[in-house]
């Protein structure tokens, strides 16, 4: 039955956002033949949505910045649950990977003396984000794409991987289908890199597109790899609230970096009301000081709007819950007020935040240079993911690597803005290099035809079932449930209910049927995505139930405080031999004295 085409590559890269493309470039440079599979067209991945910038301690704007400060900021932001080795490598290598982009044609905004300009962002001690207005992600993905296609990689566009193929313990390829024709494709590879991004589509309100269904997480899990820290999901504090159809679309943190402030319905700037102890000494104590910080005054401390995303999101939820929200259920984010402080403020805003200006003007009929925006939290990013070795990015399964959002470790309990673009450069590069080396050392494995046959049959099964439910109803039910019960404010009771709900949805998903044929059939694709969505939803719920404390992005109403005994543990998810999901907890690895000393020094 399952006829398929076969493609051979030394290294197969699944995902073509920043991490996948950077890995592909690195693997090609190591001499490997590279295939890149992308779920959409090339250059459309979610990296294009990244707005604010890429964090790298280049120190162009403030020479007090260096890798040690970036390391300490990242660890503090992640509430010390981060993999310290990844945080170290990331802080050290980010500057070179940013400069490298410039050598490949990227154009960043400039300082007065012609170097790369850097801007302030939440949780970063100094102006650290290299940027191009508010469309840094587009600049990065286009640069990687345009440079990458000249390095000899084969790109398989609109192609979705269903399962990884195994030879014993090792991963040796993947089975996929192409959207255009619905044909099955077998990829035979010596090493595989997952770079599939996030899981935002498990929630109702999200900044993520249809693609982000946790594919890489699930492929790895099904192949026997470990997932860690899946309870940590970043709810970005500022998503659009109105009109309803754009709810959740991202409003860049850059708005606050440029001086934007958050106010409730009474016009009160509520972020000054609650400043976490870890950040008291580094936060402004007056509106004036906060403003001076955003304008580059080195002696000023940051305004509370630039505290970490988890904290800002929770403060917004509090204002809304206590009845001080905006008309459409958010709060106000105002950049227009800066006209009180500077001449030609409207031009300045349009220059610094052109896509935000355009986005609100087009989609909400609102001029951000004149009026405040309505914003509220939106599911944005998953800190948890495939457990990888910090240096090589190899998962716990030989031959299977992961980089970018689908890998875990760097961000701990909460990611700082700007650290994802640098994450994907640094660890995309490392994953590509080490996958190529693994391929060279280990040679080709053997594809198990029976596995291909079985997975192929399962892929086509929804066509054979008649009269079942459609896939969209199940997807919507899951999104509603996760939003309400495993969202930004959690309780053990709610999440236990969600876990039962997931099981029921899984049963319904088994019976889904699709109409039409295999040619570009989104109903079929959605039906196939349900397995990944349900798997990551279960992993998130189970991990979040287990962590009986509040830390970083994980907030438990029934356990609102931090608990240091919990804070020393990572949550590990694996697939039990009987097919059920198993959860264990592991103590964090001891940090070396020299890194501990950096953290102490920067406190």
């Amino acid at each position: 039955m399952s006829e398929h085409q076969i493609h051979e590559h030394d290294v197969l890269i699944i995902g073509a956002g920043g991490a996948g493309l950077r890995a592909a470039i690195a693997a090609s440079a190591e001499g490997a033949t590279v295939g890149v599979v992308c779920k959409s067209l090339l250059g459309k991945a979610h990296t294009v949505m990244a707005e604010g910038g890429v964090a790298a301690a280049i120190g162009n704007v403030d020479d007090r910045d260096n890798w040690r400060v970036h390391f300490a900021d990242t660890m503090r932001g992640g509430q010390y649950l981060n993999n310290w080795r990844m945080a170290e490598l990331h802080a050290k290598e980010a500057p070179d990977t940013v400069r490298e982009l410039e050598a490949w044609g990227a154009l960043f905004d400039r300082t007065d003396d012609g170097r790369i300009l850097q801007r302030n962002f939440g949780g970063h001690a100094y102006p650290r984000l290299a940027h191009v207005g508010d469309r840094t992600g587009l600049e990065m993905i286009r640069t990687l794409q345009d440079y990458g296609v000249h390095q000899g990689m084969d790109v398989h566009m609109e192609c979705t991987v269903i399962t990884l193929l195994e030879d014993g313990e090792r991963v040796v390829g993947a089975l996929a289908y192409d959207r255009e024709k619905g044909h099955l494709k077998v990829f035979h590879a010596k090493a595989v890199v997952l770079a599939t991004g996030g899981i935002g589509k498990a929630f109702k309100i999200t900044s993520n597109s249809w693609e982000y269904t946790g594919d890489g997480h699930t492929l790895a899990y099904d192949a026997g790899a470990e997932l860690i820290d899946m309870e940590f999901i970043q709810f970005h504090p500022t998503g659009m609230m109105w009109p309803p159809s754009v709810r959740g679309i991202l409003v860049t943190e850059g708005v606050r970096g440029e001086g934007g402030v958050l106010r409730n319905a009474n016009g009160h700037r509520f972020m000054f009301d609650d400043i976490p102890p870890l950040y008291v000494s580094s936060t402004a104590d007056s509106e004036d000081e906060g403003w001076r910080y955003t304008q580059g005054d080195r002696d000023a401390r940051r305004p509370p709007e630039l505290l970490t995303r988890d904290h800002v999101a929770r403060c917004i939820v509090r204002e809304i819950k206590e009845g001080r929200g905006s008309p459409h259920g958010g709060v106000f984010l105002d950049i227009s007020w800066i006209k009180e402080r500077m001449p030609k403020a409207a031009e300045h805003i349009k220059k610094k935040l052109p896509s935000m200006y355009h986005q609100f003007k087009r989609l909400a009929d609102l001029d951000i240079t004149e009026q405040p925006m309505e914003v509220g939290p939106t599911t944005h990013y998953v800190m948890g993911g495939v457990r990888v070795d910090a240096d090589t990015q190899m998962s716990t399964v030989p031959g299977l690597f992961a980089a970018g959002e689908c890998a875990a470790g760097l961000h701990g309990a909460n990611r700082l803005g700007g650290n994802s673009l640098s994450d994907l450069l640094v660890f995309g590069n490392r994953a590509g290099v080490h996958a190529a080396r693994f391929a060279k050392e280990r040679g080709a494995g053997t594809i198990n035809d029976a596995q291909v046959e079985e997975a192929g049959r399962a892929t086509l099964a929804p066509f054979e079932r008649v009269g079942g439910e459609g896939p969209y109803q199940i997807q919507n039910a899951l999104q509603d449930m996760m939003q309400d019960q495993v969202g930004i404010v959690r309780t053990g009771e709610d999440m236990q209910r969600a876990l039962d709900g997931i099981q029921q949805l899984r049963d319904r998903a088994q019976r889904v049927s699709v109409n039409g044929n295999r040619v570009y059939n989104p109903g079929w694709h959605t039906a196939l995505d349900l397995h990944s969505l349900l798997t990551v939803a279960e992993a998130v719920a189970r991990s979040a139930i287990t962590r009986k404390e509040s830390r970083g992005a994980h907030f438990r109403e029934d356990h609102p405080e931090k608990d240091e005994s919990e804070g020393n543990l990572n949550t590990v998810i694996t697939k039990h031999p009987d097919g059920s999901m198993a959860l264990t907890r592991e103590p964090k690895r001891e940090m070396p004295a020299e890194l501990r000393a950096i953290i102490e020094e920067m406190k």
Partner: protein
Amino acid sequence: MAKATFRIWRGDADGGELRDYTTEVSEGMVVLDAVLQIQADEANDLAVRWNCKAGKCGSCSAEVNGVPKLMCMTRLNELPLEKPVTLHPMKAFPLVKDLVTDVSWNFEIKKRIKPFKPRPPDAEDGTWRMAQSDVDRVMEFRKCVECFLCQDVCHVLREHQLFDGFIGPRFLVHVAALEMHPLDTENRLEALRTDQGIGYCNITKCCTNVCPENITITDNAIIPLKERVVDEAYDPLRRFFRKMTGGR
């Protein structure tokens, strides 16, 4: 709640028809919202490309009431909803199914354009110095989201189907971005004049009119490139110089 009718092309390369779907519409909705609602409620297999839903990825290109647009940035309150909203796939490209066309030609064209080639670094640490004003000059071109609406509307491609001899406005913008990049040292003018067919463009500005990023494609990218090509190929002084030095 109000309802509106969407007359959507359903079919593939072998043929098809316009089919009417009526769906509920609410304040602030864009065309893509309506299409996705129809897909989820009654036409699960309706083929449509989309990603970011915020005008940043350039995936959801289609012809809305005959005008090439991004569906995610076209608000329903800009359309006359008393009659059906007609949705066609982009006409210039081969149809895959429903609203999805085969745009792979564009990706092949880009590979044939000579890549960025920087001058040697300005500083010892391997970095460059550039003025913001020089960066700003090409920023407009780098905003391109590769939606290919300009390719769709360009009559050289749409009517005359000159896919073998003309790269289209999108890639003229791409070449302009490279040629005017402050660090670039490559010369792409000869290719523009010959294989890439810049001469086919007769500056009707159709591309500029449909660009969702408001890139002034014709005036700022294509015309300056045409001038450079003319200067390089036909300037008598340069021709003399080339002859003397044995260059191109």
